[in-house]
């Protein structure tokens, strides 16, 4: 069992920087595979060759028959399985440790810079460097407060690839075990191989006990496979969300083509005025007043969409929409009380919204219906 402490120490570090499902997978690996293998299974297979009996006195027949029946022992096969299944996690850990080391180097550089600048007394340069370093830290995915690695960017990619490879290895080993031995071990093995003079009955030692462990280890392998797939699904969902938010941040306007694919109801909802605009119209008392109902606004929006569809292509090809905004960015907009999102028919008119119009509570003919 001591030999597994080597691997255990490595995997402890991986445990720290994994997702919840990853932590469960590691726990399953530790307890149900390593521990069981090291304690119970090894002793069950301990006398596998010495108690492998063949019904013959021909010297050498037992050796060759055992070799034919078990080209690789179950226990050794499972050890290889654990090693190969753990290896991708170690690759991820290597990447994570590299990130940690880069972060530590960055901190040291910052500290050095701070000391240097305090000596020289040049503030602006230091501030610039600090902000640059902070940006680098954000990109690297390191959370200062928690001391945790955040799974994003290249680290997330490494994590996903490691899980993919791990899944492939699990499947390969499960299939390999089935191909080599089938599922259950038979008590009797009929062997015909030189120097055995004829087909000889050979008897496996402790077949029932071995079968119990075989089924157990197979079940745990399937459970690990399931956990890996669940983690992939969870990460795939997370990555898709990340990509969507990045896409919205990068290009705030959605192309007209994309709009058309979304269902109308969604579109109608997307284009109801954002809360920030309403806040701009709030009463002097500071109470929030909604000057129009959502229902009326959505009806107007449906009409606007009809117009939009006609002009949509022109906008895309031509000078492009005059004002671009996205509902994802609405928090920023709220702070400035700047231009709210408007459907694209407004862009046709190339009207710049003055501050006065935004602040005014007067309904204008071209505004969203109230």
């Amino acid at each position, binding site marked *: 069992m*001591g*030999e*597994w402490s*080597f*691997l255990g120490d*490595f995997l402890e570090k991986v445990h720290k920087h994994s997702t919840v499902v990853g932590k469960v997978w590691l726990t399953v690996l530790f307890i149900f595979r390593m521990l069981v293998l090291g304690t119970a299974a*090894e002793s069950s297979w301990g006398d596998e*060759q*010495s108690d492998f009996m063949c019904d013959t006195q*021909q*010297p*050498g027949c*037992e*050796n*060759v028959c*055992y*070799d034919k029946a*078990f*080209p*690789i*022992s179950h*226990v*050794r096969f499972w*050890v*290889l399985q654990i*090693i190969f299944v*753990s*290896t991708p996690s*170690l690759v991820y850990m*290597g990447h994570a440790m*590299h990130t940690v080391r880069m972060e530590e180097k960055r901190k040291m550089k910052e500290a050095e810079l701070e000391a240097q600048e305090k000596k020289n007394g040049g503030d602006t340069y230091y501030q610039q460097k600090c902000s640059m370093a902070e940006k680098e830290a954000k990109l690297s995915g390191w959370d200062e407060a928690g001391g945790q690695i955040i799974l994003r960017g290249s680290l997330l990619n490494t994590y996903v690839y490691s899980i993919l490879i791990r899944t492939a290895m699990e499947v390969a080993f499960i299939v390999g075990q089935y191909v080599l031995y089938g599922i259950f071990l038979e008590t009797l093995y009929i062997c015909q191989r*030189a*120097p055995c003079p004829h087909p000889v009955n050979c008897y496996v030692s402790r077949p029932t006990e071995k079968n119990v462990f075989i089924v157990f280890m197979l079940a745990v392998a399937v459970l690990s496979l399931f956990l890996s797939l669940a983690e992939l699904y969870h990460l795939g969902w997370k990555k898709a969300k990340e990509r969507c938010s990045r896409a919205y941040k990068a290009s705030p306007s959605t192309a007209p083509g994309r709009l058309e694919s979304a269902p109308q109801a969604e579109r109608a909802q997307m284009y109801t005025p954002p809360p920030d605009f309403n806040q701009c119209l709030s009463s002097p008392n500071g109470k929030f007043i909604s000057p129009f109902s959502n229902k009326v606004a959505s009806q107007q929006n449906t009409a606007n969409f009809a117009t939009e569809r006609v002009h949509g292509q022109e906008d895309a090809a031509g000078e492009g929409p005059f004002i671009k905004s996205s509902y994802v960015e609405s928090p920023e907009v709220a702070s400035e009380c700047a231009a709210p999102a408007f459907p694209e028919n407004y862009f046709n008119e190339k009207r710049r919204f003055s501050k006065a119009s935004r602040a005014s509570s007067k309904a204008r003919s071209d505004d969203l219906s109230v």
Partner: protein
Amino acid sequence: MSWAFLRDLLSGVNKYSTGIGRIWVAVVFMFRLLVYIAVAENIWKHEHDEFECNIKQPGCENVCFDHFFPVSHIRLWALQLIMVSTPSLLVVFHVAYRENREKHHNQKLYRKPGKIDGGLLCTYLISLILKTGVEIVFLVLFYKLYNGFKIPHLVKCDIKPCPNTVDCYISKPTEKMIFLYFLVAPSCLCIILNLSELSYLIFKYSIKCYLKRHMKKQQ
């Protein structure tokens, strides 16, 4: 057999290694040390008892086994693991020497005792060359001693006191062969890692030297 000492040694080496060096340590741990301890020792445990010859002549089995396995695979494997890890001690000793020197003189003599530059670079390169050399020597030894990396299930033996050519059967030949490949493949991988680390370090520091000289000339 406690391999914890080797593990602690290699963990210490990890601190003063380059990135490739760390990969080398991980390969040695995972694919060599762990496989050896968890698997190989058990396969080769009863190799002599399970070695069977088709003869009742006392002593025949002993001499035949001794002829075909002058040094058991497993012992050679253990020796290889130890000899391959030992050159890394040179680096650890050199860093300890630097730290000692700084303490003795009570002043900062080096920018950072663990940083690979100057004399420590030479020590590191020497350790890499030694490691590679040891790997190659052991691979060649394995190849020569056992006629390639194959383990047959039957060998023919006619050494005294065996009265005639006798069939002798080796136990678990297929399993032993699989794990012999597990010895050879990571060995080759480690050789490649050592050579790439060597070339990387030489390239990096020659560029550094060249740039330094270039800057000096400009000044």
